[in-house]
C-alpha cells in the first residue's frame, strides 16, 4: 500500500525499481509456496484426511464380522455410546490416568529440578541418566516393567515388596494395583521431560532476586512459594498442556503391560476404541469412540490454553 502511494510522487527510476521489488516479492512467495507444498500435502494426507474419514465412518455401521448389516446409521453409534457403561468407565479411567500421571510428573519433576539446581557437581551426569527413559519407546518401557520390574517373585519391585515384608503382590493382576502400576510406569518414563523443562526454566531465573528476597527476610519456603513458583508458572502450564495431550492419547505402554486388563481396570478410552475396532471388528462404533476421545481432548486443551492465557 505504502509503496504504491510513494510511486505517485516518485520519478520514473523509482517506479521501475518498486516494480522490480514487487516482482521479487511475488517470485519469493511463489518459491516459498513451492517449498511448503510437499509437507502441506503430506500433512493433509496423513492427518486431516484420516480424521475426516474417522468422522465419516463413525456415522456408519461397519462390522467386519457382520458385513451384511453395514450401512449408514446417522448418529445411532453416538446414542449407543452415551448409554454404554463401558464407555463411561473408560472415560473415567482415562481421566484418572491423565490427571494422576501429569500431577506426579510435575511434582516429581519440579522436586528433581530444584534438587539438581543445588547440586554442586554431577549435574551433567544426572541429566544424561535422567533423559534415558524418554528416548525409549513406550512399548519397550512396557515390556521392561512387565518382565523386569513387576513380574511376581523375580521382578525388582516385587522382590523389594517381599523383602520389605509386604509379600508378593499381583501387580498387574489386581485391578487397583494394575492401575497404580500403569500410572507409575507412565510417570517413570515421562517425568524426565518435565524435569528437563523445569530445570531449564529454573536456571534462567535471575539470582539477584533470590538475594533480594533473603535480605527481605523471606524463608526458603517463602522464596519457593512467592518467587520460584510464580516465575515457573508459564513453564509448568506448558508442561501440563503437553503432558496432558500425550497422557490422553497414551496407548503402547498400557497395551503391552496390561492390555487394558485385568478386565477393564486399565482400559483407557483409547484402548477401548482399539478393542472395539480391531478385536470386536466393530469399526463404525470404534470410530465413534475415537471421535469422542477427540472431543474430550479438544475440550481439555481449550481449558488449559485458556488458563495459560489468563494472567
Amino acid at each position, binding site marked *: 500500500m505504502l509503496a504504491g502511494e510513494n510511486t505517485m510522487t516518485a520519478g520514473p527510476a523509482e517506479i521501475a525499481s518498486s516494480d522490480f521489488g514487487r516482482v521479487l516479492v511475488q517470485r519469493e512467495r511463489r518459491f516459498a509456496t513451492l517449498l511448503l507444498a510437499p509437507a502441506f500435502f503430506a500433512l493433509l494426507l496423513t492427518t486431516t484426511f484420516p480424521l475426516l474419514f474417522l468422522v465419516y465412518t463413525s456415522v456408519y455401521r461397519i462390522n467386519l464380522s457382520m458385513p451384511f448389516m453395514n450401512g449408514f446409521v446417522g448418529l445411532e453409534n453416538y446414542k449407543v455410546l452415551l448409554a454404554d457403561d463401558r464407555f463411561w468407565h473408560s472415560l473415567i479411567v482415562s481421566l484418572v490416568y491423565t490427571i494422576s500421571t501429569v500431577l506426579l510428573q510435575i511434582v516429581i519433576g519440579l522436586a528433581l529440578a530444584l534438587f539438581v539446581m543445588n547440586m554442586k557437581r554431577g549435574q551433567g551426569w544426572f541429566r544424561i541418566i535422567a533423559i534415558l527413559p524418554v528416548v525409549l519407546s513406550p512399548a519397550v518401557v512396557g515390556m521392561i516393567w512387565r518382565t523386569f520390574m513387576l513380574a511376581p517373585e523375580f521382578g525388582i519391585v516385587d522382590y523389594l515388596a517381599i523383602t520389605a515384608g509386604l509379600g508378593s503382590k499381583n501387580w498387574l493382576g489386581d485391578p487397583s494395583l494394575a492401575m497404580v502400576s500403569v500410572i507409575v510406569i507412565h510417570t517413570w518414563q515421562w517425568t524426565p521431560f518435565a524435569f528437563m523443562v523445569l530445570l531449564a526454566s529454573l536456571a534462567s531465573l535471575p539470582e*539477584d532476586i533470590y*538475594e533480594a528476597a*533473603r535480605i527481605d*527476610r523471606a524463608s526458603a519456603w517463602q522464596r519457593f512459594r*512467592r*518467587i520460584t513458583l*510464580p*516465575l515457573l*508458572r508459564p513453564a509448568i502450564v506448558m508442561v501440563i498442556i503437553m503432558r496432558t495431550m500425550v497422557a490422553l492419547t497414551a496407548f503402547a505402554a498400557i497395551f503391552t503391560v496390561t492390555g487394558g486388563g485385568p478386565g477393564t481396570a486399565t482400559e483407557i478410552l483409547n484402548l477401548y476404541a482399539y478393542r472395539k475396532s480391531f478385536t470386536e471388528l466393530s469399526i463404525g462404533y470404534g470410530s465413534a469412540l475415537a471421535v469422542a476421545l477427540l472431543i474430550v481432548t479438544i475440550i481439555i486443551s481449550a481449558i488449559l490454553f485458556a488458563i495459560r492465557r489468563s494472567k
Partner: protein
Amino acid sequence: MNARGQVIFKDIWKKHGEFVALKDVSFEINPGEFFALLGPSGSGKSTTLRILAGLDAPTSGRVLIDGNDVTGVDAADRDVAMVFQSYALYPHMTVAENISFPLEMAKVPKSEIAAAVFDAARKVKIEHLLDRRPGQLSGGQQQRCALARAIVRKARLFLLDEPLSNLDAKLRLETRVELKKLQRSLDVTAVYVTHDQEEAMTLADRMAVFMAGEIQQIGTPAEVFAKPNSIDIAGFIGNPPMNLVNAKYSDGDIILGGQRFKTAVQITGSRDVIAGIRPSAIRIGADGLKSRVDLVEHLGDTAVLDLDIGGALMRVRVGDENVPKEGDTVSISARPQDFHLFDPETRKRLV
C-alpha cells in the same frame, strides 16, 4: 539520637581458592553515617558490601553490627535493607507488591502494610505507579521502586550497591541529591558502594578507598582529596586526576623540569620522588616553569589545558577568562603546600 546501625569490620579476609578478594579489611561505621566504599572495579568494595549484607561469608575475620557478632548470621536475620545494582525487583509482582514484600515477610499486620507502602512510595515519588509491574517501568522508576522496597522496612542498615550506575547522566545527578536528602530525613546508616569518585565525594560523610582488595585510606572526602596517602588514590580521586611526575627532592625543594620549587615537606637529604599536583592547584603567571600548551578542552565555566613539560603531560584547570591558545607558551607554578610527594618504591605519601 539514632544509635542503631553501627558497623565494625575486623580483619576480614575473603579468598576464592588462590585468589584473594579482600586482604585484612577493617573499618568502623558510626550510626547515622553515610559511608562510601569507593574503588575501581574488582577492588573488593562489592564483596565487602555482600559480606556486610550476609550474602557472602568471609574466609576469616568478624563482622559486628550494633555490637553483636553477626559473622555467621544469614542475611535474613541481620535486619539490613539493600538496593541492588540490577534493582532485583520481583518481576511477577506489582510495584506495591514489591514494596510490601519485606513487610509481609516480617509479618506486619495487613492493615498497616498499605499505609506503609504508600508512604514509602511517596517518599521516592512513585505513588502513582503502584499498580504497574517492573517491566512497565523506566530505569529510573525501577530504581525508585527498589529504593522504596529498601526504606519501607526501617532496617538498621541501608546498603546500596552502585544504585545509580544504570541511570543516564542527568537522572543520576538528580537522584544523587535525592538520595542524600532521603538518608538525612530517615536518619539511617547508609553504606554506599561506587566506582564513581564524584558520587562518593558528594554523598559520603566518610569513605573507604579500596585498591586491589585492600583499604588504602579512610576519611572524609575532603581529607582524602587533600591528603591522598598513596599514588593510586592520588590518581583515582579528582577529575581530572592529579598530575604525577618524576622529580628530584632535596631539602624541602623539588626539581621539576630543571626548575626548583618549594614544598611543604621537611625531610633532610635528597632522593627520587613522584610529585603530585592537582590540575586546579597549578597557577599560570609571569614566572615559573615554561611549557607549551598542546591541547585546550573547554568545559564551559572552566577549561583544561594539556601542557608538555619536557615530554611529560601535565593537565591544568583554569578559569574561563584569558584561556591560552594551543601552541602558546605559559609559565606555571604552584604553592608549596599544593605539592604532594610520594615514594616511587612504596607508592606511599611522604610526610
